[in-house]
């Protein structure tokens, strides 16, 4: 199984409509790929909030409108913030039937007010256990951060280091939401508190954007990237339904399975795209993925081991924090970045000699976790 084409739009506050964003990403992926649109056998489209935010559901048929006369089998996939990777996971299984599949993810968030978006994003939590208590999404992860700090002595300064690194990386990514924005340690430290201990710079932005990936059963060109691991695991939707609050069990389960499929260990990874919807989750991801032991992620960050020049670069595109988080597109944007790096096409943010990469995409506060492992060995 191969990634044979990738494409995305810029992320940020954009004027394009949801269909226009979907089309741009599909066009770019087909353009990047040796496969013509007529050779695509099926399409998966991932999106989270098209219903409440844009009053647009039945997205599979919207995609059909964008591909006139093809009348392909198209299905929408929704698993909150993990929708993109979940669509890819489904598509990989469907390769048993189709030679080439297009996966496109999209989110249009800027038309809703911040309050509406807070409520809409809350739908990724349990209606009675979480939403009714006013547990907005930053608050879910604020509890994780608070627990992590209490258990391991992680500090807010460690979170600031994650935010700063990701903002620095996004300056090297022209498609990133914050590619234009210079951010200082002081700005991050002094930002307004959203849900203690998390402040504004611990949170990913509300972005518009789309990303698309073409996958194929057989190799099509030398730029292809091999998919060696694909796994999805789930868990109780509410943190309060679980006993463990400093890690996400679903991510541990899915990553273990993905490593087994790929026949690698965490030590083999050259780059990782981690789901830093909130800074704390990048630290939790490092521990759940087995990159470091529980409680040690803070030390890795302090030693700058996760920077582009470090020995375990994480979120070279800026991550969800600074590349942006157009929810339905996020998982596919992670695949876009890993494939770009493995192809050696990442320009100023290129990690030298990257051969094995992993994407870590989380829905809600770990109710869904999807892991993909991509390889391109020289």
């Amino acid at each position, binding site marked *: 199984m191969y990634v044979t084409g990738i494409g995305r739009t810029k992320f940020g506050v954009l*004027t394009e*409509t949801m269909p226009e964003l979907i089309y741009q990403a599909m*066009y770019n992926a087909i353009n990047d790929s040796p496969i013509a649109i007529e050779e695509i056998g099926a399409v998966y489209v991932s999106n989270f909030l098209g219903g409440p935010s844009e009053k647009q559901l039945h997205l599979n048929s919207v995609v059909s*409108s*964008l591909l006139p006369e093809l009348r392909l089998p198209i299905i929408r996939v929704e698993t909150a913030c993990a929708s993109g990777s979940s669509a890819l996971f489904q598509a990989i299984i469907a390769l048993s039937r189709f030679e080439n599949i297009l996966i496109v993810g999209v989110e249009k968030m800027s038309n809703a007010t911040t309050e509406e978006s807070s409520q809409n994003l809350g739908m990724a939590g349990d209606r009675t256990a979480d939403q009714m208590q006013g547990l907005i999404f930053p608050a879910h992860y604020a509890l994780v951060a608070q627990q992590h700090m209490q258990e391991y002595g992680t500090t807010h300064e460690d979170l600031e280091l994650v935010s700063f690194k990701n903002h620095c990386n996004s300056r090297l990514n022209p498609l990133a939401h914050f590619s234009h924005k210079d951010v200082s340690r002081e700005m991050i430290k002094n930002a307004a508190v959203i849900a203690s201990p998390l402040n504004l710079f611990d949170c990913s932005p509300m972005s518009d954007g789309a990303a698309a990936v073409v996958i194929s059963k057989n190799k099509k060109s030398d730029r292809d990237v091999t998919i060696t691991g694909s796994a999805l695991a789930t868990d109780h939707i509410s943190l309060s339904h679980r006993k463990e609050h400093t890690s996400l069990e679903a991510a541990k389960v899915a990553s273990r399975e993905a490593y087994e499929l790929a026949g690698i260990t965490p030590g083999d990874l050259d780059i990782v795209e981690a789901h830093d919807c909130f800074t704390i989750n990048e630290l939790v991801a490092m521990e759940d993925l087995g990159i470091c032991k529980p409680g040690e992620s803070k030390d890795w960050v302090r030693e700058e081991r996760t920077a582009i020049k470090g020995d375990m670069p994480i979120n070279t595109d800026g991550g969800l924090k600074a590349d942006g988080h157009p929810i339905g597109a996020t998982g596919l944007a992670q695949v876009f970045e890993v494939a770009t790096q493995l192809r050696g096409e990442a320009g100023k943010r290129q990690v030298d000699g990257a051969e094995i990469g992993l994407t870590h995409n989380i829905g809600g506060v770990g109710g869904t976790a999807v892991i993909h492992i991509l390889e391109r060995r020289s």
Partner: protein
Amino acid sequence: MVYECEGCHKHWYYDVKKCIFCQGDVKEVESSKSTVRGFTRIEIPSPGHTRVPYCDLLLEDEYGNFEIRKSFSDHELGELIEAEPKESKKVAKSRTVGIVGTGIMGSGIAQICAQTGYHVIMIDRHEDIARKALTRIDKALSKTLKEELKQEILGRIKITANLYESEHADLMIEALTEDMELKKEVFRELDNECNVDTIFASNTSSLSLTELSQALKDPGRLVGLHFFNPVPRMKLVEIIRSKHTSDAAVEYAKEVAFELDKTPVFTGDAPGFIVNRLLLVFLNEAMDKHADGTSTAEDIDKAVTLGLNHPMGPLALSDLIGLDVCKAILDVLYEGYKDPKYKPCKTLCEMVEKGNLGRKTGEGFYKY
């Protein structure tokens, strides 16, 4: 709207620009007329479509492409109807509107006129002030429009410092500060510069329109066209008839109000018209209530927002309007009606005297 690939002739109903099949350019197919092929009359309301009944028509254009269009009038099968004008060209008639004064109100009016498709001439004594107003409009439009459409709209606005450039305007709207002599002076000049059939309008909120119309050789050409701040968002326009205003001028103002997607209400030339007469008595009363010391400013505002469902409390609103402006309007009302209920209350007079004018000075009923 329909878009077609110049290479492989596939069709889209979205502005996709490039063809995913052949990489050809995808251009809009402009149709000029449509035939009614089907219709349904909708009898039950839904959010966004509360006025019933209405019809949804299935239309076919001359190239065989279909579209759905909402209409409040009945149509017959086979009936030919004009193509819906593009968003950017939605205009019943091509009008040229001159706007004198480029403050918040003037630039707001200029923005909606240009968005409606009118040609707009923005006039300010200092061209750099007009240029600033244009930047303000640019910023406001950037929030919701694509670059291309925004540039098209901005392209319809011309800025100048010369009143004589408005000679071909169909409508001149004056949006200067509330100064009778200044306004009269401008209208005298406009009377000389503009065509004989130009309609004159004033955005005054408190001055006598009848007196103002004396500046014109034919006072029948002046009508009151009172917009509300922020102009692009507020639906209301007060159309004011002075003692001399002609029916033609009122009719013209009404047509323009509808084209600008505003709802007009009509009133005679009496101080405060409708909105300000009611509002200022209300604000004055709120200030007086505050002065008796039994309720905090926060509580008075909370009572009005939650109890009367106003979007903003009277004291916060007074601070936003400016306490000097509030007092000036009350003075005009008091002078006009000679009724003590319009007399600015003691607190208001004291605060204006102290220079605490609300938001603009950093302190009014609240600190900013």
